[in-house]
């Protein structure tokens, strides 16, 4: 089972509920709302753990967020912002 962690090759700034992530080329991704919650939950956690924690923070059942979380984790990995070990 994969565990996810934030890439060490990004710079991260926070303002209120927003997370700004810059890669080496200087392209910046801005996360807001649920995306921020997911980003904060990833460090060293499995997909199931992340789904559970996001659902708990949103106050909804796991199944309601599972698909959304999986898709989002996958896109962050594709963009090189997350690493799946």
């Amino acid at each position, binding site marked *: 089972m994969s565990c996810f962690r934030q890439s060490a090759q990004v*710079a*991260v*700034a926070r303002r209120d509920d927003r997370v700004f992530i*810059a890669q080496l080329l*200087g392209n*910046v991704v801005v996360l807001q709302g649920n995306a921020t919650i997911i980003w904060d939950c990833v460090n060293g956690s499995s997909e199931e753990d992340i789904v559970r924690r996001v659902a708990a923070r949103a106050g909804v059942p796991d199944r309601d967020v599972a698909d959304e979380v999986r898709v989002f984790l996958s896109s962050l990995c594709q963009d090189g912002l997350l690493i799946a070990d």
Partner: protein
Amino acid sequence: MTQTEWAEHEVAQVRIELAHGVVQLLCDSRRIDALHIKGLALDPELRHPGRVSMDVDLLVRPPHIATLRAALSEHGWQQTGHFSTGSPFEHAENWHHETLGHLDLHRLIPGVGLPPDEAFDAFWGCRSQTPIAQVDCAVPSLDAQALIVLLHAARSHGDHRSRLDVEHVWRTADVTTQRRIRDLVGTMKAEVAFAAAVGGLEDFRHRPDYLLWKVNSSPDAARTTEWRARIKASPGIRSKASLAVRSLQVNRDHLRTLRGREPSRADMVREFMRRLSLATREITSRRGRS
């Protein structure tokens, strides 16, 4: 500050924060020794309320500069200014990134008398780390940061911010801190510039760089006076001659910034004539006074 101004200010600060982090990551990836100086990298203890930063300032180990230039160019940064045209001290070159903003790449700290390599070694030897944008950035020791702020104030023509910096960093420091900073001034051979910042510059009238610091610390220095000071402070005859010729040459980087486009040949000629006429007027008015 209006809400819009506040939002713009916040965006600018985020951009600078990210720039510090990204540049440090580039340095780590190429094994480049660099210290983040001033701005966001400044210890909170040394920042007076309301002090804002506009760019990233990086002091780079001189032999590593070429490697950093290559890394920056490969990662979307463009060089917008050169050492020879940036300031009377020729200490920094300027880079710009469309998203991350401005970076000043320093090869030396104006006012430090040690050769640049030795000065970097001294600053590097007592560095510490501070996290910026979740990246560990190398910064000078607290005393070295204070010295760098004071030396910057010494060449800021007595502007409002530099006066606040001197007040906050030096005049409110306790005696022990001031003694440590003075010791560092001695180690770095920065006595003249330091005196230009905190007082006592007239004690150094005999030094070749006295006039340079007098001019750069004073609010109303004329351009020809600044060039005379640079020529006087310059060590060799060859260097002096080169500076004298360059004092009338047009600074293409500066002109590009002013015009917002690449200057044309006509722009360069007009600027040269303007400088020549300005220099003539300054010399004439000095003769008129004497």
